[in-house]
């Protein structure tokens, strides 16, 4: 493991651990309002100051990090499972199934990602509870983000289906379903892991974009996207640099994922 990758791993572990300890580090919670201290600068009571309605920014960053960092992998898992099922099966079955699956992925991939996301998000009710909005946002990312991975998995499964050991197993009378689950799927694991890791930073950034555009997680639940909306009211960077902490954290985390991914990308293609 290179020094950079080890550093990235350490940073991710530290950020995840701190965000998981949010209820002890910020026991007041993310929604409590300090009406006497709105838009306050950092102090001993509020390490990163407060927002325009007096909520502690440090607490919101911790809880927001937890939401983004726990749910982006969940969405990545969902998209990878869908990709494995659709792409893997299509590649294994071949013929018309593979063509149909690839035509569907072509259709999805021809749409700019953000257009697809906001269209799908608009189809869901916008005025929902914060918890539902979190689930809707990350489920959408998972449900819509399977196409690129499916394409890679389809190609890998097709090549596996033509391999000697699968041919031999088929000739020995192993039934199709067993062949797929016992012989093809386990060999797709490295590609599945790679696709899973590649999806996480993509989903973190997508959620951030949706959040800034007001189509992500609903208030008062924090996420990196909703925290970054605060930048909209910024007049200059030097005016309140502590407002940039969520952005810095997001960049550091996504960079750490990218550093870890350099190895995974080689497996994925």
């Amino acid at each position, binding site marked *: 493991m290179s020094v950079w990758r080890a550093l990235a791993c350490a940073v991710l572990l530290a950020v995840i651990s701190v965000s998981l300890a949010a209820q002890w580090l910020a026991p007041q919670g993310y929604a409590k309002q300090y009406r006497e201290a709105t838009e306050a600068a950092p102090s001993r009571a509020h390490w990163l100051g407060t927002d325009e309605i007096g909520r502690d920014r440090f607490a919101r960053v911790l809880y927001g990090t937890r939401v983004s960092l726990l749910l982006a992998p969940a969405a990545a898992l969902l998209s990878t499972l869908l990709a494995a099922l659709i792409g893997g099966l299509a590649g294994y079955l071949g013929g018309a199934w593979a063509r149909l699956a690839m*035509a569907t992925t*072509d*259709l999805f991939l*021809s*749409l*700019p*990602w*953000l*257009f*697809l996301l*906001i*269209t*799908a*998000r*608009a*189809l*869901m*009710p*916008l005025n929902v509870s914060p918890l539902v909005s979190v689930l809707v946002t990350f489920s959408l990312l998972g449900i819509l983000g399977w196409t690129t991975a499916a394409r890679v998995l389809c190609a890998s499964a097709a090549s596996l289906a033509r391999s000697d050991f699968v041919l031999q197993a088929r000739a020995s009378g192993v039934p199709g379903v067993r062949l797929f689950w016992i012989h093809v799927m386990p060999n797709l694991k490295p590609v599945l892991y790679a696709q899973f890791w590649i999806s996480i*930073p993509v989903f973190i*950034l997508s959620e*951030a*974009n949706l959040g*800034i*555009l*007001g*189509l992500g997680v609903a208030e008062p639940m924090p996420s990196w*996207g909703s925290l*970054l909306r605060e*930048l*909209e009211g*910024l*007049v*200059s*960077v030097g005016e309140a640099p502590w407002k940039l902490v969520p*952005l810095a954290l*997001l*960049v550091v985390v*996504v*960079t750490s994922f*990218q550093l870890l991914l350099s190895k995974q990308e080689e497996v994925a293609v």
Partner: protein
Amino acid sequence: MLLWRLARHALNLLAIVLLGGFISATLVRLAPGFDVDEQQLDPHLSAASIQALRDARLRDRNIFRFYLHSLQRAAHGDLGTSLSLRQPVRTLIRERGPLTLRLVALGLALAWAMALALALSAARLRIGAYDALTTFISGTLLCIPAAVLALLSVLWNLPGSLAIALIVFPRVYRYTRNLLAKAYSLPHIVTARAKGLGEGRILLWHAIPVVGPQLLAVAGVSVSMAVGAAIPVEALCGLAGIGQLAWQAALARDLPLLVNLTVLVTLVTLLANSGADVIGHMLRSQEA
């Protein structure tokens, strides 16, 4: 051969647009609240008027009939009416399209100019520190959400096209740099350099023909990236283009407008990809 390729692309395009249109119409039809019209709550309307509104909605209950109805209207140039802006979708697209087109074209030109300049200099100079610096810049930009880049461009009074360029640049740069680095390590280019051939000639005669078709494919994909980037840039920079319209439609859940815009954008990106593929094919066949 070229005609066959063009015909195949046209058929592909038609099939995807029809299928995409059907999926979009299905989504609109099945979206929560489709059967309900706000006007039905208007106390000024008589029972007969409310019944007429309900009957109008009932006609579109069947998804296939709804799609055929939408398709027929689209064939006559009627893309429907925006629910939130109360204007024909066609008029809205005609009014706002040129701004987005200008923004995307300028953004793409800037992104490609930056990416090519940095990738070429990195491939030619082969200095570790310079390569690390350019990779660091593009890597950092890649880790910043597009919407944040748009917000920062507002903060620093930068033009929207530059924000689009900064969103597209790192993706284009990564591919271009890798392609050029691979091309410059090919045996015939190493030999040409060893024989003392000028860098300009190596680039034009040996490197570009190798990477040209692949760069064209990236160019096709970059159109899709730039169009996608237009949403946050226009929405947050207050530019009245197609991206801002899509964002407003999403916030207002104006599905007819949003779906029409999505199909239009799909068509543009598919055309760009098909164009890049056909030109790449022509270049390859010319070389052969």
